[in-house]
């Protein structure tokens, strides 16, 4: 089953995750679910910002298409996930992009801070593999199949 935008093009997910193994897990999961999307993985906050704001290595628009969904871990080396979230939500251009935090951190203050910064959703990476699969599955379908997006593809 393919999920496509209203215009029928594959959706792009920006995955900001410093743990390579976790990134792999998530990719594999999306593959298993056949949530056919393009996933761009960046390993830290700074790179994520560069990508989103088309700076540095990502100055070329072609190399950095706007994602439809940002999956964000909170604990990142250097600039942490919360800062990235704030940067996105502060930006007029980017704030419409749904940001979903996917993290191992249960800490209440992280959740609160994320919502204060207008995160769209906050998910925990479950320890149990089956559950992990389930989350990835539901995540995919919800945000990519069910959720409506406000923009036309650029």
């Amino acid at each position, binding site marked *: 089953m393919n999920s496509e935008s209203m215009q029928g093009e594959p959706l792009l997910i920006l995955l900001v995750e410093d*743990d390579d193994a*976790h990134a792999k897990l998530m990719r594999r999961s999306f593959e298993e679910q056949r949530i056919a999307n393009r996933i761009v993985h960046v390993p830290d906050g700074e790179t994520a910002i560069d990508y989103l704001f088309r700076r540095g290595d990502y100055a070329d628009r072609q190399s950095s298409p706007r994602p439809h969904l940002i999956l964000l871990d909170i604990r990142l*080396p250097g600039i942490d996930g919360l800062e990235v979230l704030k940067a996105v939500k502060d930006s007029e251009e980017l704030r419409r992009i749904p940001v979903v935090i996917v993290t191992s951190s249960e800490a209440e203050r992280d959740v609160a801070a994320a919502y204060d910064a207008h995160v769209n959703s906050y998910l925990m990476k479950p*320890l149990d593999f089956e559950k992990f699969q389930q989350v990835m599955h539901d995540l995919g379908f919800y945000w990519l199949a069910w959720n409506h997006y406000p923009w036309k593809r650029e």
Partner: protein
Amino acid sequence: MDEVDALRRRVAALERQCAEALRSEGELRLVKVAIEQMLDAVVVTSPIIDAQGPRIAYVNAAFTTITGYNAEEVIGESPRLLLGVTGDPVAEDLRRTVAEGKLFHGEFVNHRKDGSEFVAEWNIKPVRDVQGKILQWIGILRDVTKRVQTENQSRFTNQQLLVLLKSLPVVAYSCRPDGDFGATFISENVVDVTGFSATDFTSDPAFWADRIHPEDTRRVFEGLSAVFDDGFLEHEYRWKVRDGTYRWFQDNVKIIRGADGTAAYFVGAWRDITEWRRERDTLREAESGFRAVVETAADAIMTIDSRGEIVESNRAAKMMFGYARDELVGRNVSILMPSTHGERHNNYIAEFLGGGQPGIIGVGRELTAVRKDGKSFPIHLAVGEFEQNGHRFFTGIVRDITEQKRAEREREQLIAELESRNAEMERFNYTVSHDLKSPLITISGFLGLLERDLTAGNQERIRENLHEINAAAKKMEALLNDLLRLSQVGRVIGLRESVSLGELAQEAVELVVGPVAEREIRVEVSPDLPIVYGDRARLLEVLQNLMENAIKFLGDQASPQIEIGTRQDGTETVFYFGDNGIGIDPRHHEKIFGLFDRLSRKTEGTGVGLPIAKRIVDAHGGRIWAESAGAGQGSTFCFTLPSKPFSEQP
């Protein structure tokens, strides 16, 4: 011849008779003049007394002066004309006396010619002939109006005085100036005071002395003998009143001297002061009780007047401020405050007196005070106010809170330390829970995938999965090891000693000689690294961690360099590890000392080296921080260490 003799004798006799007669006449004349000149009136009356009384035969000039009647007017008249109203009992008495032929002496009211009254003193005497027959009556009349008036006045005054004396609360007396000092007069109210009558005192000279309390007798008499020198005495003694009990009396004695200067007598005022003494003693006891409370109070208590002048200060005040007994009273309270405070304190008083906000009054405030030797110290001051005799006074209670402040500071320090430890522990827990969970997620995830891939028989995938699981497990192990290290460092610092930093630096360099050689890192150690004070093994750890860290941060470059040295920052000696490596973004300068915060994926390890170094340096009482201009501009890690044992630091 007998005839001649007889004639001669008859002539001589006649001559004698004549001479007699002449002399008598002369005498008579003198007498007459004397009578005429007398101030007292003389009235001579006939011996016959009829219904009207005798008739006036002669009056002298004084009669006219006194009564206003001329001689012509009264001669032949009865002296009764001098009486205004008959029936005056004295006049009756006179008539009777005269009728009986006796002497009369009396005083009664007579009337002058003009009708005015006067008090007449009459002495009336009959003149008898040789046979005893009354020839005349002679009356001497004296105008004693003034005397009578004075007497009456004096009698009246005396009466008044006596009444006054009776009603005074004080017993008035006069007494002899010697012996038993027996009373010669004592006011009647003595009966109310002592139960004894005035007569008891005046009839027995020893009465008063006998009833003095035996213990006081000597003192009383000694005191009385001193009256002769001083002229007066006030003393108190016990005296036995009628019911047998002793009561306290206050005696004010004064000496009255005669014209020649010798003591004529004593006068005095005697008062029962038993109740008064009791009240006074009660008051005194209360007062001394209160005074004792103030004097023995641990806090300084001072009273100042509305000008700020110290009126009273207790012992604690003198001790607290370092002044001797008299040095505080009379001085202005501002001497106890440092100059700016002193002005402010006076302003408080001025404000309060002016009806402004009571700054200190009642509420109490913390201030700085200054001792006599100029040393300042913190105090708590509470001020109260009271009024006495229309003057306002302020009471200040001062507590030296130096100890309290010190304890407060200590407490604050402890709290701050606890808080920071708590915060760190929180961070620690947070970090640990997250960072230990991550590899578990990986393991669990890849195990799941492994299962799938085993079923599918995808060898490559299987290998990949196993690799990830392995790596994650190793990561966990490394994490746990670092955690252990970190918790062991803790606050427990071992024996402190003098340590040569230079030696330690060399050791640290030796420990990394492998990587240094491999990457051709140039390491420079400054020769003037000093001696520091601390736990040798721990300090070596610090240097080691910094060394490893520096190497890590070198990055890829042509000529990697590490410099270990010391520099002076103001009064502090700072040690540093400098590298020309990849540098650190200023935003992360603090983060890197936090647990497991890795800056970049390029660096290896779990990032616990710097946190450990920080813990050790902190525990020694030093500071550690990072300096770097930014990415690509190298970094310098600095720390300070106390050169003296912590306990000896100011």
